[in-house]
């Protein structure tokens, strides 16, 4: 019986090395949000005193992987994209804070938004694979370096996509930010976004001698 030829062996060896590289090296790859989409153009939106607010559920695995390179719902986080847009005729100023936004689930559970670093930390790539790399042909430090880089990129991207608070005013009429809602373990198995909505409280600045006031309203997800 004839053994593999030299060329074949070379190919097999190269493939094995590449496979090992693929297993050991990591990278972060996520899309930015579509900047063309505005709150006022979304069908299921709310308007209050010239502020349009809309939300988009990004917890589906497809959307989550697309924008966060992770199935965040699988990791216990529900990402929701919040759109804010000031009406073009409005001169009002609104403050929106992450702490004032909640995700209300069908069963009445209210989830608070968490820090993106917490999410990034929770879903970060593990260094376990670099340990494996040290035992294999591919050097472990390369793997460790790629993990570090990927995690840093993820942290940066999550932070850029989510802000703690924002002021919408005539100079910044449109804004979008992702909110990460942590899903408690006790409801993780029955978690659903069916009938869920986002409860938003915004603070409208007083102008021209009028007092400022808080406005609270639910914003539902469109289909």
């Amino acid at each position: 019986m004839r053994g593999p030829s030299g060329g074949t062996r070379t190919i097999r060896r190269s493939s094995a090395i590449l496979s090992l590289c693929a297993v050991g090296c990591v990278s972060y790859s996520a899309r930015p949000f579509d900047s063309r989409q505005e709150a006022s153009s979304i069908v299921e939106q709310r308007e209050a005193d010239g502020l349009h607010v809309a939300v988009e559920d990004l917890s589906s695995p497809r959307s989550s992987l697309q924008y966060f390179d992770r199935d965040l719902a699988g990791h216990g986080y529900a990402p929701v994209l919040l759109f804010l847009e000031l009406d073009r005729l409005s001169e009002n100023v609104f403050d929106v804070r992450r702490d004032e936004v909640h995700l209300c689930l069908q069963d009445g559970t209210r989830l608070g938004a968490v820090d993106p670093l917490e999410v990034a930390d929770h879903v970060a790539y593990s260094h376990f694979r670099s340990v494996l790399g040290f035992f294999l042909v591919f050097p472990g430090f390369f793997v460790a370096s790629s993990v570090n880089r990927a995690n840093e990129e993820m942290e940066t991207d999550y932070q850029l996509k989510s802000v703690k608070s924002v002021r919408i005013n005539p100079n910044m009429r449109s804004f979008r930010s992702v909110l990460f809602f942590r899903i408690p373990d006790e409801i993780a198995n029955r978690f659903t976004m069916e009938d869920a909505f986002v409860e938003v409280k915004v603070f409208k600045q007083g102008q021209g001698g009028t007092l400022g006031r808080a406005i609270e309203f639910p914003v539902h997800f469109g289909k």
Partner: protein
Amino acid sequence: MNPRILAVLIAAALSTAGCGGLDEREEESHAQSLAALERGDWSIAGDLARTVLEGEPDYGPAHLVLGRALFELGKEGDALEAIGRAEEKGGLDPEQRFTAILYRGRCHLELGRKKDPDPEPESEAAPRPELKEARDLFIKANSVLTEASSLHPGNYDANLWRGYAVLRLENYRKAIEILKECASSKPEKWEHRFFMALAWEGLYKVNTQSMEAYLAITAQGPRAEHAPLYDHLTRIIQLAGDDTRRRMHTAIQAYAKAVPGHSARIESYLAEAALREAAERRQAKLRSTSEKVQTLIEKSQFREAVAAVESFLRDDATQPNPSRMVKDAGEGWSLLLEARVESLLGSGEKEKLETALQCFELARKLTSKVDRLVVLQQKINVVELGLARDESSRKIQRTHDLLKAGKNAEVLAMLSGMSVDGLSTRDRDLYHYLRGVASYHLGQWAPAARSFAAMAERHFDGIDAFQGISLVRSGQETAGVAMLAGIPSETRGDEVNRLLGIHLFEKDAARAVAYLAAVKNPAPADLELHLKARRKLGQDAYDKGDYPRAVEEFQAARQILEVQLHKRVFDVYLTLGNAYFRMEDFERAKKTYQDLAEADLTQAEREQCRDIYLHRGQIHLREKNPDLAYKDFAEFIRLRGQMPGELSNMYGRLVAMYADFLPLDRIQYWNYTSTAKDYNYTLFVKGEQDGVYRVERREAGSTSEEAWSRQGIHVVKRMGDAIVKLPLNVNPAEDALPYVEYASQGQECAAEIVAIQQTVEIPGGRKYTDCLKVRSRKTLRNADGTVRSTKYILYFAPGVGEVKQEVYRDDAKVSEIVLSDFAYRSGDARK
């Protein structure tokens, strides 16, 4: 169906369903509770369910009945507990389980509605705890009702209330989707259409589609169960168009009429609507009135326009709150009236003026702008004045008659309160004239002056005199005097002349004199002042050396004194005489002096007038009447006059000529003292006979008598055989001093005046002036050829006699005898 039959049937059904735990009575009660539930007798149903549960506490269906009854009675919390117990106890068939879930969901829903009632349209809720609690309850309701829907996917109630729960969660699109399912199962029901319309409003605000949906429901007729719909209509009706609003309003009115126990909100709405309707009626009336007023004013039918406005205002006055629109309309009418009525003013016709007045008053009443109020008031004043002009004119004329009758107080009373604005110039002047003259006659000088000053045309006789006098007497002397002085002399009355005289006296006596002289019927005070002015002028002229003028003034003064006052004032005569004297008109001077000298003057007055003697004496001198001159000079001196230096020599000579240096007829005695030794003697003038005076000499205890007589300028003393002759006056015809020689007892005697105007001062300080110094010598030629002489130097003072005697023997002074005392006879006035 008969309830009793229904209960039996339900009981039978329950029995067959296996509710074997209940005894017969409980079964019946349970059946009755279900029947009551069907009937809507919620309390009875609840009570019956409790009865069942008392016997069988674990009977789930009874708990469910109780829960439903409590829910319908509005006790959702208790209902939730009862329904929970029903589900917990079990024994529910699938339908009952569905019912339990459905009502549990509805309980949450109603509890949420109680926390957050149906919101007002287009309102934004501020965050508050109740809102969040309500939302939680709606979430629960949705969750529970979703479960119910899953059990009976096509069930109307489950979908209806789930749709409503989603609606209250403001997920309007999903609510519409759910409620659409209701429409497919029971399209004849109204609730889903109502909720769906609410969802449309949530998405698109109040809109035609939603309102048409509500009206379609109300078209079925008013029903008590439609209460939420009608309540909602009251919320949105003001957002609807006119037609839709009317339809909604009609529907609400029909509902309120058909359903007596309607909500307070409906009641409140109807009350507000009634007010709105009233307001609309007011507006409509306002519009129609505005149009009518506009038309009438355009046609110049002002009275009709005013009547229309006032009629409207009367009706509007019954309204509790003044309307802004009425105010605006009133302002517009006011402007219109003001603008158009101007055309009536020019005619001057009474009727038109009255119409204008009416319109202006209404315009003033209608406006609330301060600047227009002022303007309108001014116009009203003008019109009122125009109307009042004729009446005022007549009144003024009547008042003039009163003035002519001398009823000055009545004149003022009648003119009081009358306004002169708007009167013609003539009437206005007459008004002021009447006031002025009446005030003048009443002594009210300041008001009189003001009235006269207010006159525009001074065509009344004597107005300047009235005004000038009023001004002067009210203290405005400068203006008054100027005015009075401007009156032509032929028209000036005594009063004017008098006042001018008085007020010009100090400043311009010459003018004052002219005015005072013009007083035709002078009062004593006028004469006195005239006299005073003349004297002042005369004296001023005299002081300035203008003697003709002085004569003129004093002549006038003298005329006043003698003709009008019938008295004499010595200084007038004196100065007049002096003026004549200065003018060398001696005859008149003498005459004047003579008049004064003959006047009955006091000693003090005489002393003041002593110059007449001085001057007259000088005149006498000029006329070569030295004796008369001496008398006057002597009188001048006697009246304490000081002889001027240039006359003193002349006077001294006159004294020497004419003075009585030995006034025997006046002297009672002389007492003399010798300074050489203790020797004195007294000479008593005892009496006169045939020009010879007996003089008794008393000395050293002896008494002798002498006879003294005058012989021309000499006095001759005879003492026994001895004679002494002395010249005691200077001869006027001779410049040389007199000398006389004579013989006495064999001695050669001579006497002569050696000096005149001597002053002798005797011990004791007494001085005698103008004395004669007479030297007397006796020479005795003895037989042996020796001569012994005795010389006497005698000093004689005029009117006194011998005052001093120096005795020389052989030219050696041996003694000096001086007058120590003398006395005039009693009754001698010249001492």
